[in-house]
C-alpha cells in the first residue's frame, strides 16, 4: 500500500501520544484523553454497523461490559498478561457480535434495535446475579505494579487505548473504502435489492457485526484497570450506549471519519463540562446535542461542512 496522508497521520498520532506520556506529568490529562479515546473506539465501532449498514445497535453497553467483565473474570482466575486478556475479551465480544449478526437475519429495523437492547439488559441481569463477578455490589481490580516503559499505569492504559483507537479507525476506513464497504452501503440502502444483485448480504452483515463487537469489547476490556472498581451500573452505563450513538450522529454516519470527528467534539465538550460545571450537566449536553443534531442537521458535522463548501462554491461560480 502506498504511503498516503492517512498512514502518515497515524504515525504522527502514535508518536505524539507517546511523547505526551513522556512530557506531561499531570495524570488528569491522561484520564480525560483516555475517556475521549474510549468514546472514539465505541463510536467508530458503532458506526461500522449503524452507519455503514443502517442496523441500529442500542446495546453497545452490553458489548462494552462483556469486554470489561471478561477481564475481571480472567484477571481473577488466571491473572494473565494484559495484552493476552485484552485479546480474549475482544474475541468474546466479537463472538457476541457474530451472534447478533445472525439475529439480523430475522429481525430488521426496530426489532433488531430492541433485540440488542434486550441482550444488554439480559447480560446485566446475569452479572447482577453472578457472585463471582461481584454481583450488583461490584468488584475491585488491582492495577499491576509494573507499567512497562511508562511512568505509571494510567499512561500505559492511555497508550494502549490510543493504539486500539487507531486500529479501529484504520479498519473502519478500510471497510468503507473497499468493495466490502460498497456492499455494506447497498445493504443499508436496500437490502432486498442488494441480495438480488448478488451481494452476499449475510456475510457482509456478519463481518460488520463481528468487527463492531470486537472493538466494543476491546474498548471495554481496559475499563476495569482504568477505574479499578467495576459494578454493573458503571459497566452497563446508559451513557456508554448513548455516546456511541450520539458521537457518529453528531459527526456524520455516512463516512468513516464522521464518528471520529463526532467523538472528538463531543468527548472534549463532555470532559470540559465535567470539570468546569458538573458531570450530570454533561449528560444533559449529550442528550440535547444528539436530539438537536438529528432534528436539525441529520448528516452531522460532516454534512454541515459539505453544505457550507457547496454553498461557497455556488457563490464563487455565480
Amino acid at each position, binding site marked *: 500500500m502506498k504511503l498516503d496522508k492517512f498512514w502518515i497521520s497515524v504515525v504522527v498520532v502514535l508518536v505524539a501520544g507517546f511523547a505526551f506520556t513522556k512530557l506531561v506529568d499531570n495524570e488528569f490529562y491522561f484520564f480525560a484523553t483516555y475517556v475521549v479515546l474510549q468514546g472514539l473506539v465505541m463510536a467508530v465501532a458503532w458506526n461500522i454497523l*449503524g452507519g455503514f449498514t*443502517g442496523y441500529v445497535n442500542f446495546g453497545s453497553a452490553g458489548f462494552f461490559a462483556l469486554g470489561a467483565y471478561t477481564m475481571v473474570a480472567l484477571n481473577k482466575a488466571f491473572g494473565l498478561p494484559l495484552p493476552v486478556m485484552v485479546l480474549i475479551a475482544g474475541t468474546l465480544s466479537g463472538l457476541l457480535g457474530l451472534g447478533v449478526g445472525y*439475529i439480523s437475519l430475522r*429481525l430488521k429495523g426496530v426489532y433488531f434495535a430492541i433485540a440488542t437492547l434486550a441482550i444488554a439488559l*439480559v447480560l446485566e*441481569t446475569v452479572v447482577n446475579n453472578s457472585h463471582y463477578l461481584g454481583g450488583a455490589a461490584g468488584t475491585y481490580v488491582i492495577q499491576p505494579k509494573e507499567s512497562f516503559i511508562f511512568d505509571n499505569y494510567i499512561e500505559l492504559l492511555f497508550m494502549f487505548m490510543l493504539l486500539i483507537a487507531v486500529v479501529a479507525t484504520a479498519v473502519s476506513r478500510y471497510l468503507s473504502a473497499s468493495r466490502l464497504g460498497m456492499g455494506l452501503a447497498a445493504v443499508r440502502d436496500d437490502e432486498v435489492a442488494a441480495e438480488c444483485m448478488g451481494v452476499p448480504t449475510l456475510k457482509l452483515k456478519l463481518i460488520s457485526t463481528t468487527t463492531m463487537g470486537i472493538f466494543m469489547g476491546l474498548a471495554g476490556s481496559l475499563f476495569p484497570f482504568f477505574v479499578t472498581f467495576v459494578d454493573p451500573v458503571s459497566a452497563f452505563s446508559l451513557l456508554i450506549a448513548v455516546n456511541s450513538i450520539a458521537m457518529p*450522529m453528531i459527526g456524520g454516519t455516512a463516512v468513516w471519519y464522521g464518528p471520529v470527528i463526532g467523538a472528538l467534539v463531543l468527548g472534549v465538550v463532555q470532559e470540559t463540562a465535567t470539570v468546569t460545571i458538573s458531570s450530570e450537566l454533561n449528560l444533559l449536553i449529550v*442528550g440535547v446535542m444528539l436530539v438537536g443534531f438529528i432534528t436539525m442537521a441529520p448528516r452531522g458535522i460532516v454534512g454541515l461542512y459539505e453544505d457550507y463548501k457547496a454553498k461557497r462554491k455556488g457563490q464563487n461560480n455565480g
Partner: protein
Amino acid sequence: MFTPELLLNAVVAGLMLGSFYAAVALGLSITFGQLDIVNIAHPTFVILGSFVAYIINENFGLDPVLIGVLFMPIFYFIGTTLYRVYYASFERTGQESLSGLAFFFGLMFIIEVVLILTFGVDYRLVEADYIGQTLHLGPLDFPYRMLVPAIAACIVTGAVVLYMNKTFMGKAILAVSQDRLALQLMGANPLQVKRIALGIAIATAALAGALLIIIQPVEPSVGRMYIGRIFAIVVLGGMGSISGTFLAAILIGVVESIISTFYGPSWAPAVGFGILLLTLAIRPQGIFGRA
C-alpha cells in the same frame, strides 16, 4: 419452600402486576403497534407521570390516582406537540427509521437527566390511606397498593378499547397505519389522526406513572427496566391489538411474579427481555397476532 398457597398468591400478585403492566404498555401499543412510531421514551414519560404524582401528592395531599387522571390532558398536549416535532423532522422526510429511533433515545435520556438534576437519584414515594393495607380473602392476599393500580389499569385499558372500537376517531387510528389513502378517502386527516393517537398514548403514561409510584418507590432511571418489559408485551400481544397487549401483560406479570417468588426478585427483570428475545426469534408476529 414450595407450597400451593405460595404459588396461588404469586399468581394473584402476578395478575395484579400484569394489569398494571398493561397500563404502561398501552401507550406503546398505540404508538409502536398502530402508528409505527418507535417511542422507546414511553417508559420515561411514565416516570415523568410518577414524579408529577409525587410533587402534587407531597404538596397538596391529593390521591395519586386522581392526580394521574387530572394530568392526562396535559400529557395529551405533550403527546400532540411531540408528534408535530416528529412529523416535521422525520416522517415528512422519510428518515423515521434510524433518526427517529435515535431521536426518542435522546429524548429519553434528556427527560431522565433533567429528573435526576431536579430530584436527585433518591427513591420517592407517595402517601395515601390505602397504601400499606391488605385485603384478605381466605388464603389470598390483596395488598391495596397492588389492587388499586390493577383496577385503575383495567378501567383505562377498557376505556381505550371502547374508544378504539366505537368512535370514528378510534377506528381511524386503527386504520391509519394500514391504509393512509383509504383513510383520507373516508374523510379523516391522517396527520390529525396520528397526532391524536400519540396524544392519547402519552396521556395514558400520566396515569400509568401515578399507578407505578403507588406500587413502588420511584427514581428517575427506573424507566429503563420497563423498556424491555413493555416492548416484550407489545410484540407478544401482536403489535397494536389492545386486548392482545392486555393478555400479554398479564402473562408477563404472572411469570415475573412466580420467578421472583421462587428464584428471587433480582432475576425478574430478565423475564421480559428473555421472553422478548424468544418471541422475536421464534414467532415475531406475537402469540396473539395474525401470521
